[in-house]
């Protein structure tokens, strides 16, 4: 056994780059979870807009 092959035994098979380059199967999100993710996304858009407003207001104060 070559030194490299012996060394590689220290890694779990799933750790090898050849294994991690293969994509995991896609998971389907339920309706409830999708709705929650969309709600949080809307929350982010609104909240970041408010932060932007507060930032600009702080500059003009």
């Amino acid at each position, binding site marked *: 056994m070559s030194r*490299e*092959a012996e*060394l*590689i*035994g*220290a*890694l*779990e*098979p*799933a*750790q*090898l*780059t*050849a*294994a*991690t*380059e*293969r*994509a*995991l*199967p*896609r*998971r389907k*999100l339920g309706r409830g*979870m999708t709705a*929650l*993710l969309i709600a*949080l*996304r809307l*929350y*982010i858009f*609104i*909240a*970041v807009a*408010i*932060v932007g*407003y*507060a*930032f600009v207001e*702080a*500059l003009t104060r």
Partner: protein
Amino acid sequence: MASDAVSDLSTAFAGKAPPLSEEDVARAQDRRRILETRSARRPLRLLWLLAGPGVLAMLGENDGPSMVSYATTGATYGIGFFIPFILLTFVMAFAVQEMTIRLGAATHRGHAELIFERFGPFWGYFAMGDLVFGNVLTLITEFIAIRAGGLYFGVPASLSVGLALLLILSSLAFRRYATWERAAMALAAFNLLFIPAALYAHPSGAALAKAIATWSPLQGGVNAAFVTLVMSNIGATVTPWMIFFQQSAVVDKGLTMADAPQARLETAIGAVLAAIAGIAAVAAASPLFASKVDVSNFSNGADFATALRPLLGTTGATLFALGMIEAGVVAAMTISTSSAYAFGETLRRKHSLNLDFAQGRWFYGAAILSTLIAAGIVLIPGAPLLALTLTVNVIATLLMAPALLLLLLLVNDREIMGAHANTWRANLVAGTIVGALVLAGAAYGVVTVFPNLLGGPP
């Protein structure tokens, strides 16, 4: 032990030797050392070898904007409510980061990679958008801290930013995760400079103990400034880049579930050290509160150090300024690396600090480009630095809620986590954190739109 979906892929090479990369060999060398140390039953050496991702995530998050937030907190409220509040935020940070350890060690994949693969590009690009937005802004503020610290010592902004840039980019030249990690940890140790700086403020042990026991005093009461500082202090402790960084670093370091106990311990040690340094920054700045110094017009961390000089003495103020520079440098290293990992994972390019430049050109390119952009922006004269610094932490807190929800979904995904999926207790803690972050964000929105709602100055 890999879980179903992960082990299904790893057994795809059954019967024939899988192709090996230089990255595998480098990682295997580090793993071999860990396995030998575990066999020799040397627990402290094992902890030392496995330390890194957690300590760097925690001390890296004690970055420029975080230390300015803590200093602003100390100068505005003194020693009181915010001392136990900061401790609580680090408990939250540990609860979140512990999940990234399990995700990385069980799946051997980075966070961005898992989001794209399991939930598809729609949610993947949103998560990446949040990360890039937050990271670019935060990286800019790291250079603000470096520039501010340099100005305290009379170093021109272009020189201090240039030197920091050289240091940060040089760290990438190691082309070995383990070496980069140890260099970053050595620099991160200087975050503890805030502790001796705080001692020069002669904080009362009784006042600290009373604050921790009673969550008081809260002089000035609850107003818009209070809500902003609550948001800033949360954003100073739990942020999306930490999730992406620690998970990717766990993978790059090659940790497995057998290493999880030590990884948890080193993350807890990092959280304790970072909490002490954060509270020290509050204590160091608290004489400004006692002297009723108005910090609202301060433009950066150098103003804090300068204002503290007559109160802490030259040595105390110098330690404070040096701490600011360290905070900026270490965070710039970890945040630019976090962006690079996520960039490589998203575009399915090689992403590891074990790569040489040719193989990792996309990975290193992302780290170098993001660092150069941030450094360049900071040199633009007249930028509103303190407002930007505090705002960055508020944005980090807002972006944390969706990032945490995706983290929760992944860590509950039994197809990839197997027996290492969250327990109901962990879900209860994480769900409470998501709820608290959303409520804090909503409160911030309300007091921003209606600044007179809570009374007092906004």
